[in-house]
């Protein structure tokens, strides 16, 4: 287990390095700079000084070298915009993003997995058809539009929930953004679960279990569910990563103070250190979740542990 963990951790290094290089190169060739986004009528003398102060006049290789050397010590640099350390900025935004992502995933799992199970138990039935219509709709809906619809219904028409903001740190403010973000993974999990369960239900070992007189509840619990979990976990892992990216739209729409909105603001204002830092955190989160999922495979299916 330990060697597996070490091997996986070592595998993340080239991924992280590739992302760092890619982001750096991209923002070196993209036109526009922080100096030009400060204001529509910024003073050119100030702009020149700002570029010098931020090292934007230095050659690309020098900037990259400085960045990597700093990164090796865990220093993400200072934001061009706020002049705060990027680590501080990300730390302030990390908790709201984690709240949002975990709440969305909880919504997706709690609704999507049972829906997929129920649909698979009676394929072609009313429940199955309704569940799949819901799943396809959930996958097709644009988050921006869905978010607005939910705001309109639950805030404006019903008055049950606030339409935007972070309030005192989540609570009722979390519900609408989490549902908006969670609908798509919920739909995907429902479809994945249904497909996995349908396939496993016809597998030889399930037929054998039934022929041995095992009750249907035990068959589903010990054989179907456990085997389906591998595929469900894989989907969840991939969706966690995707949620980090999709949170950008939802956070902006609901004025949610997460890393997604930090990333958008930083890109638009060419705040390169903040962009690099945010993307790095997103990538590390994605890798960490996938590593966790890989470890969980071993718990669910002992054969995988030694692979």
């Amino acid at each position: 287990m330990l060697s597996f963990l070490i091997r996986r951790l070592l595998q993340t290094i080239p991924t992280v390095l590739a992302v760092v290089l890619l982001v750096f190169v991209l923002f070196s060739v993209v036109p526009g700079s922080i100096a030009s986004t400060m204001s529509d009528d910024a003073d050119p003398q100030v702009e020149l000084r700002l570029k010098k102060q931020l090292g934007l006049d230095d050659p690309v290789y020098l900037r990259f070298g400085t960045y990597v050397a700093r990164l090796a010590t865990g220093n993400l640099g200072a934001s061009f915009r706020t002049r705060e350390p990027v680590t501080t900025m990300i730390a302030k935004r990390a908790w709201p993003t984690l709240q949002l992502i975990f709440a969305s995933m909880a919504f997706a799992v709690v609704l999507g997995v049972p829906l997929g199970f129920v649909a698979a138990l009676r394929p072609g039935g009313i429940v199955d058809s309704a569940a799949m219509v819901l799943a396809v709709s959930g996958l097709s809906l644009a988050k921006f539009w869905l978010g607005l619809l939910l705001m309109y219904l639950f805030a404006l028409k019903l008055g049950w929930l606030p339409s935007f903001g972070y309030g005192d740190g989540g609570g009722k403010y979390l519900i609408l953004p989490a549902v908006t973000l969670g609908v798509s993974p919920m739909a995907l999990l429902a479809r994945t679960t249904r497909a996995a369960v349908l396939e496993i239900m016809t597998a030889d070992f399930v037929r054998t279990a039934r022929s041995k007189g095992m009750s249907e509840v035990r068959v589903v619990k010990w054989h179907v569910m456990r085997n389906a979990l591998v595929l469900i976990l894989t989907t969840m892992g991939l969706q966690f990563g995707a949620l980090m990216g999709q949170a950008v739209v939802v956070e902006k729409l609901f004025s949610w103070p997460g890393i997604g909105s930090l990333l958008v603001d930083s890109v638009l204002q060419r705040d390169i250190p903040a962009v690099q830092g945010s993307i790095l955190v997103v990538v590390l989160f994605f890798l960490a979740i996938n590593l966790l999922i890989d470890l969980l495979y071993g718990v669910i299916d002992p054969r995988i542990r030694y692979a």
Partner: protein
Amino acid sequence: MMFKRVALVAGLGLALVATAEAQTPRKGGTIRMTAPYGSSFTSLDIHTTQRAQDEIYAKALHRSLYIWNSAEGKPVLELAREDVVSGGGLVHTFKLRDDAYFHNGRKMTADDVIWSYNRIMDGAKAYPGARYVRVIEGAAAVEKGQAKEISGLKKIDDFTIEMKLTEKVDPGFYFFTALTSIYPADEAAKDGFIQKPIGLGPYKFVEHVPGSRIVLERWEKFYKPGKPYADKVVVAVMGEAAARDVAFRNKEIDTSVLGPAQYVAYQSDAALKGTVVEVAEVFTRYMGMNPAFKPFTDKRVRQAINYAIDTDLIINKLVKGKAYRATSWLPLTSPLYDKEMKPYAYDPAKAKQLLAEAGYPNGFEFEWTTSQNESWGLPIVTAVIPMLDKVGIKAKVKQVEAAVLSEVVRSGDYQAFIYSQQTGPDPQAALKCFHSATPQSACNYMNFRNAEFDKLIDEAGQADDIAKRGQLLQKANALLYEEAPVWFFNYNKAVMAVQPWLHGVQLNATELTHQNVEDLWVDETSPAK
């Protein structure tokens, strides 16, 4: 006077303000403003940021030497009680208030003003307010690292400073924005200041949730008796217009800036029509033409473009009436706006005639650089292209991101571009952009060169008589109309929806969202009691 006129145009806005004035302001409650310009607040150090978004909260937290008075349409003294002018109009002696307290309880003195201006001129930090403070003699030397302190600033006593300027200008236009806010010299030098800023404004800092909101509460020792009225101010970051619309209708916010589509929707909704407040802001939208591109070197071609475009049609149909037709450069709310001047008429025949006279009877082709902006970007360009086509001019669109457009404009790397430029509140500064001594990278984006224009601007700069200065500047504005370095499109009509319980909203032509928050109050019908 100009403001009253604009307010008449605004109509509803004036009615709202007048109603507010007729009532007795109520103490207490929470004002819930929105910061609508896209992204999060840049920084809690307002010296470092020039974005309109940041000044929304800064108006509550900080104070500068002057403040914008929307009713009078000009900057007035704020942290000083008196300004005595001497030295041929170059020396200003300010008698500072002796009752202004920072939010840490310490009284403001002349040292704080001098410290703040010296800080802004720190060349190594590149503070954007340097462009204003540079008008003080010796400030540029500090910026270049040639001096440690601004020589033109002298402390006479704790509450008196002498400021020597390099030009005969009204310092009010230079020292009213939050970029030149006065900081507490001792506290602002500490590292933690950026996390918990201290100012002289009517509200003190409570909390910043990055990307979401800033919360401020009443500063009891604010120097204006009885003000501010509300207990708390919350400024929510809400870049999405549709989300703001829901929140406004749901009574979760007190103000919301409206775009063209929402402007029409609100005007046609009986329940919302009364909430709309509008003002002509000091921004001119235009298509700039590069004189280095051969056809545009000829004045007749530039005039032909002005004649070829049905500007009123675009404003009415595409911009949904959310703009005022531009005549020349100075906008409607400029004190020197020439109301006698008539805009270029829509006259394609005249445009063709001018093109033929200029040697382009069959027209020509040019590249038009634009952003996606809905009010002065791609949709406008798309509507104009067929109009130009009718007189033989073909335009090819080059679409770029907003951040890139500003670089294109400053570098001169274009044949034509469409833009929105601040043209006030100081008419002298706005017109000086066209002076040949002003670099293209500063604000002379069309690289305009005209000896007659330079002479008028130079004479205006030397004039002691304000009326004479005004006449010279109006002549310069008229010359720009004749020379037509741009297609004069429109002056921005800023529109904001204001809940009926929020009173005291000012029609600020420099930026409608920038409110002197101490004058705002909410009545008992506000949901945020």
